[in-house]
């Protein structure tokens, strides 16, 4: 293995930080907007939907797709930065 222990640990720390920041978004759109605050959001109209209902049945899924794509791109960059890519 060409990379040092320290560099590997720093890579891992940054990876965990990226994961946590994306998982916060993941939690907010699904459990937050779709379940916990759905009634409050429903008072906001959104292209013919009530916003809470839209998040619960469609919006969260679109955000999930975006999150995985963003994560994959972030990690490809991180792999390059620490020179651990294959």
């Amino acid at each position, binding site marked *: 293995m060409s990379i040092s222990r320290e560099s590997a640990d720093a890579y891992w720390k940054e990876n965990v930080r990226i*994961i946590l920041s*994306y998982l916060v978004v993941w939690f907010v759109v699904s*459990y937050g907007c779709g379940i916990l605050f759905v009634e409050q959001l*429903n008072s906001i109209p959104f292209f013919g939907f*009530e916003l809470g209902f839209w998040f619960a*049945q469609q919006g969260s899924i679109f955000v*999930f797709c975006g999150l*995985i794509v963003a*994560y994959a791109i972030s990690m490809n960059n991180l792999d390059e930065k620490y020179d651990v890519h*294959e």
Partner: protein
Amino acid sequence: MDSQDILNFTFIGASFALYIGIAIWARAGSTKEFYIAGGGVPPIANGMATAADWMSAASFISLAGIISFIGRDGAAYLMGWTGGYVMLAMLLAPYLRKFGKFTVPDFVGDRYYSNFARVIAVLCTIIISFTYVAGQMRGVGIVFSRFLGVGIDQGVVIGMAIVFVYAVLGGMKGITYTQVAQYCVLIMAFTVPAVFLSFQVTGHILPQTGLGATLESGQSILATIDQLSTELGFREYTAGGKSTLDMFFLTAALMCGTAGLPHVIVRFFTVPRVKDARSSAGWALMFIAILYTSVPGVAAFGKYNLITTVNGDDGRGVAYATMPGWFKNWENSGLIGWADHNGDGRVQYAAGAAFQGKPEFDGENRNTDGSRVTLNPSDGQFDASKQPFANELYVDRDIMVLANPEIANLPGWVIALVAAGAVAAALSTAAGLLLVISTAVSHDLMKKCVNPQITDKQELMYARLAAIVAIFVAGYFGINPPGFVAIVVALAFGLAASSFFPAIILGIFSRRMNREGAVAGMVVGIGSTLAYIIYFKFMGGTRDELFMGISPEGFGTVGMLLNFATAFVVAAVTPPPPAEIQEIVHDIRIPRGAGVAQAH
């Protein structure tokens, strides 16, 4: 045989010929090809295969119907069965790919240096996969009996024969490329009628935007369904019925269960590199989202069509004699039942049960108007202050998708396409599950526990034998469905969430997690979840006894939390894992050097 039958036979027959052709082209010659398709599957292809593997008869046939009948609460399934992929992509797939073995029990057994942990993992894999596969075989049988006019039992046997050819012959390699084809068939079969339906009801081509459309009356489609629902005594379609806490736990159990299902995880072992594992999770979710974001539209339009067709323009019911053909077709296959409570000869749909349980038909006996004689109508009581009449109609939720093309008067080829799509959805999932079962037996039990001396060729033979046995067991359950098929969701997802999910996450993210902690955690997680589900599903537990109002389907989340807590406590008071295990954990966190999975 009329022209519709010929179309159905042609579409289903052509799709079968395609699957078998692919299977012969992609035969497996080694265990590596049989278990993980040689480890060289491109990420987009793996994404498609994962989507087909994941979307079962339940997603294709039942999901829209469930949402149609429970409204906004259906979001637990929509978010639960997609949100799990976010966790899969970030918390599991890349590291398991780097680990580079064949199965989930491989990881659990090696990371926790314990054959006991491995055997627990094998047992969970087998229980989860069998409960799941029985439902798929049944789904194939139902579709065949409706669209090809054969009995449900013969349908199951035909399904077994097809899966036999490409799962036993091709292993993971054969399955992967047939699943790519099956994804294409099932996604066309779902979206084509969805687009037609959306356009007819709302004028929008996309069901995703059609759901927010405004009808000619000036009212939005959702507000219209809300109004129709409340007039008939139902809850508002866009209002929730479950408690917030229960929704929370149910969604979490489905998400963590999704991320922990062995037949999904194993798909990420088939790609060449760690970055491919991440990107193929993204592809998979996008391919899944095409169907999942169409589903809410299909559910709402189906509900709207059902109410307006059955209750008619005046909202007072339509005479049985003038009901359209689809109504009678599905009555013939037992998925629709009618009990004329008020004796006016009209079919009326409202809140309440029309029958005691599912309708029982008196063989082929008919009433004078041609409707089927039923044996167990309910008493037909209703609250006149809430609804105008008693409910007289039983509608199986599955027809929301299967009957849509007929309800919307779509051309015959669309009906045939839906039949082929439903079969593709069921077969692709069944094959993935059967492979996981056979691998668990040949690799994790025979090779790793019983006799490590067996050669690659012998192991491959065991894998094929195990697949054959598994197909027969699955077929048996398809023909004689045990009561537990109905609780498959609770059982499979609860088990996956409370066993593998925490064990794998801890194995990657905690260097300190040891054998004692992981084993204790799994035992507590599985034990509590199984006990809760069995008590409430088999031993007659009542709703008031539920723990904090959490339904059995959502209890996997509690089991998972117990698993995490137990694992941390036990690991804190027992010795840390050996140095070479800590080295493994260090290694799986770094992408470089993955290579292809190694036989060992």
